[in-house]
């Protein structure tokens, strides 16, 4: 059963990303990515990581992609220019991707053969919360500072009026 869900979700995810590569409309690209991230959230759920799954759907598919959609609506969406000749670039990018895939598969196999631990329950939310506020306390606080800095930075960059 888990295999069936995994197959459906992974095909949905990879298919959405492929469709995003093929499609030339920016808004469609963003919506395909929402689909990909939502199905990735389902895959996180299969990995017994309910917290990560929730954050993925809320923050990624929700907040970040909606931000992208807003940005797309801010730019004027004129039709993409005539289809320029870029077959060479597509072939080069494809070759690069194949090499990268081979490398990643090799690295993944070696990483897995190094040690094989038994799977334990990692989805305990209370345990995760305790971990965040003990072992990762500094990282957690620094992350909140980072978000504040990003907020102020974005306001300073984009909030300025044209004439100033």
């Amino acid at each position: 059963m888990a295999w069936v869900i995994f197959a459906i979700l992974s095909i949905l995810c990879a298919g959405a990303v492929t469709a995003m590569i093929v499609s030339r409309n920016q808004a469609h690209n963003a919506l395909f990515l929402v689909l990909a991230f939502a199905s990735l959230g389902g895959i996180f759920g299969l990995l017994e990581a309910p917290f990560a799954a929730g954050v993925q759907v809320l923050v990624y598919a929700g907040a970040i992609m909606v931000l992208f959609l807003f940005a797309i609506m801010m730019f004027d969406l004129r039709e993409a220019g005539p289809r320029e000749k870029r077959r060479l670039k597509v072939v080069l990018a494809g070759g690069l991707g194949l090499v990268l895939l081979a490398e990643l598969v090799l690295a993944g196999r070696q990483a897995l053969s190094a040690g094989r631990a038994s799977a334990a329950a990692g989805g305990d939310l209370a345990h995760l919360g305790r971990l965040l506020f003990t072992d990762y306390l500094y990282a957690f606080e620094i992350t909140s500072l980072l978000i504040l800095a990003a907020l102020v930075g974005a306001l300073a960059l984009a909030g300025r009026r044209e004439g100033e």
Partner: protein
Amino acid sequence: MIPPLAFLGLAALLFVLGTIAFFVKKDLLVQFMAVEIMLNAGNLAILALGRATGKADGQALVLFVITVAAAEAVVGLAIIVLVFRRRKSIRTDDLKDLKG
């Protein structure tokens, strides 16, 4: 139970697709989305390995990656908006002043 290798394979595939999208697309905004795909592939790999080792640290790490990605998206989109205001275009073809 699904072995971690299946999840790692999907993560590798997603990362490669993100790389290809980054190089094929000619639009700052869409290239930025491709970077997000690569970040998500990394998250998937972290979670797969986290479950393989049976620790909850993977989820904590993913939380940090997602927050940093959100901050990066905010600042990156602000920069893209600035580029658009100045150049009236975000296509990378129109932004090659440094090419000699």
